[in-house]
């Protein structure tokens, strides 16, 4: 184990996979000399050369098309989208090409590609650079959608994403990039589709992912002082979804709170709530609560953004409301 940042962990996973498999290559804006806007691909150009670290024009459409074609022919592209918001530009390539090709060709081809992207607000980056759009992808059969809340998870899940034979949307969080934590050295794999219980508790289950895991853990700490034991489940992988994990937890607690940074309306939390009602109805001892952003664009003004984002206090209040 060594202590590295979330950003370094993502890069380490990519680097190790590039060493392991020469079919893996990176393409994206400024991934070469610049090492990406946030440094995810720093020094990889020097190590692997311009054949495998490809700078692309400012066209998300072209980049995803390149990846779909390369993947169909047997390469394993990893493409980067610095801001998740920009993925709106290339939705046809993702939804209608990457996600459909394997199915429409009767399984005769595979599309082993990863789109590594970053989501999240908190840096006053404005409405077009702060969104959490995971629900756009979880709605599409044929895509896997994963998130990471810790450096170790970032490494283990990125490696699995690259090895997966399907298109995977790997959603990192800009607010977590500088967080450091213990990360296993060398090859480290976390299978997709396995949630992780980040904290055990017997009174309330919180289902969350990405940066909200840390916020939920902080709220759980406050709630423990009030005598409420919170179990914090980090889904990590939204699709495939580890529903057994939270249903089991609900069996113990009878109470479910879903926390995500994205807006609530049509968010992935609604899917969790629907499954919990459908398959876990008899386990429920309280209504299901969601803690999400309001149904409005992310404000640019930092005070307004602070008010807009989910925080410990909102989570704390939501859990307490189950008892009042």
């Amino acid at each position, binding site marked *: 184990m060594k202590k590295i940042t979330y950003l370094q962990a993502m890069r380490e996973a990519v680097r190790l996979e590039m060493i392991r498999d020469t079919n893996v290559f990176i393409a994206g804006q400024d991934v070469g000399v610049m090492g990406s806007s946030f440094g995810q691909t720093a020094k990889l150009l020097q190590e692997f050369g311009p054949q495998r670290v490809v700078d692309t024009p400012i066209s998300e459409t072209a980049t995803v098309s390149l990846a779909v074609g390369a993947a169909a022919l047997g390469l394993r592209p990893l493409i980067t989208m610095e801001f998740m918001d920009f993925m709106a530009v290339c939705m046809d390539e993702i939804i209608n090409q990457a996600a459909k090709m394997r199915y429409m060709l009767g399984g005769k081809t595979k599309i082993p590609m990863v789109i590594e992207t970053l989501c999240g607000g908190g840096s006053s980056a404005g409405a077009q650079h702060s969104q959490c759009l995971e629900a756009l992808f979880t709605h599409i059969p044929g895509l896997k959608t994963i998130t990471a809340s810790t450096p170790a998870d970032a490494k283990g899940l990125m490696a699995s994403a690259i090895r997966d034979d399907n298109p995977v949307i790997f959603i990192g969080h800009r607010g977590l990039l500088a967080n450091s934590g213990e990360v296993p050295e060398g090859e480290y794999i976390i299978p997709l589709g396995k949630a992780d219980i980040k904290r055990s508790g017997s009174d309330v289950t919180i289902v969350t992912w990405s940066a909200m895991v840390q916020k939920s853990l902080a709220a759980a700490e406050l709630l423990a002082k009030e005598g409420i034991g919170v179990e914090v489940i980090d889904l990590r992988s939204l699709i495939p979804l580890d529903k057994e994990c939270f249903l089991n937890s609900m069996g113990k607690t009878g109470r479910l709170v879903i926390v995500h940074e994205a807006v609530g309306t049509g968010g992935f939390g609604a899917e969790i709530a629907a499954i919990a009602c459908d398959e876990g*109805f*008899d386990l429920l*001892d*309280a209504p299901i609560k969601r803690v999400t952003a309001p149904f409005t664009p992310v404000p640019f003004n930092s005070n307004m953004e602070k008010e807009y984002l989910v925080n410990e206090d909102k989570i704390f209040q939501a859990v307490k409301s*189950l*008892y*009042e």
Partner: protein
Amino acid sequence: MAVKVIMPKLGLTMMTGTVVQWYKKEGDAVRKGEDLLDISTEKITNTIECPADGILLKILAPEETELSVGALLAYVGAAGECLDTLNACSNEGNSVTAHVIPLKTNCEEKITPVVPQEKVRIAITPVAKTLAKELNINYEFIVGTGPRGRITREDVEKYAVRVTGEQEKVVQQPTAAAFVASPTYEIIPYTGMRKNIGENMSRSWNLAPKITEHVSVDVSNLVELRLKINKDSKEGEIKVTVTDLLVKLVACALQLRPNINVSLADNNIKVNKDINIGVAVALDSGLTVPVIKNANKKNIFKVSQELKELANKAQTGKLSMDEISGGTFTISNLGVYGSVDFFTPIINQPESAILGVGRIIDTPVAVAGQIVIRPMMGLSLSFDHRVIDGAPAAEFLKELINFIDKPLRVILSNE
């Protein structure tokens, strides 16, 4: 429309209940929540509250009738409400002998709603509702403590313990006040736990032709083993008692003789696969029998710890229904009083045997032609002769004596 008063299910094992006393007469005005009648079961007596406001239209179950759970007891409704139709209803077909689960009466369809009454929706969480259903509890009587008065899982659990456990409501009877003129005696109402014990014992006495076999056992090795186990125990560590050891030994002897670990029900002899040992615990107000489940599979420290916890809970009235249910054999140890060698315990139904344990006392006995002093303990095995004959009981005692003589192997075994 009229509201039915039905025989409630007050405990997991309750099949029938007896109407002890009505507090209201037909035609009396009643209020929801008011004491309406007393129901007694094999375990407890409970006062049943009136389920609705109105007039007690009709009593269908007079005092002292025994009826199945769910049977119709009375109707509460509006004045003048369709009494003729109600009169047509009876509990025929609901009698104990005919059906354990009552037939659905047709009354519901026949009653003409005279005063339309809005059905009150009771707020209850899904898990609480499911639990109430499993426990056969009518949740209409539970007061919810959750947000907006919602009934939660905890409410159902607490209610279940209250109506089925030992802390039942003491029935308001004419008490000392009524007897002020008689200073020569004190009146203790025969209710609650005292009455339950009394009724259970009477029932067992009437039901089971009982034999008791007595034997005096040399417990030198058992006493020595106990001293060895406890010798090095530190402050705060479990100290194993003779009762703990006996629970384990009896459980293991039952494993060898499953024909003792039986119960008679519905013309079948049920040979219990689980060996759950009840241990009689004396209380100020009577006695209770918490159960060590699967005692044969637990190591001695686990048995000891569980028994201590259960005994503590018994003293503070905190035993749950689950902790006093499911026994397959009972041990009653009077040895600690130092005044009893043998006695004839009454079987704790629906079990078929009970072991009475007497004091350990140094006694001269003959060993290999010599008179020596040995610690001897009295054992009295009472059993139900309907299902257990004298010989198998004697065989079981033989196994048990053998274990008491060579306890180490059994204590060390975990299965």
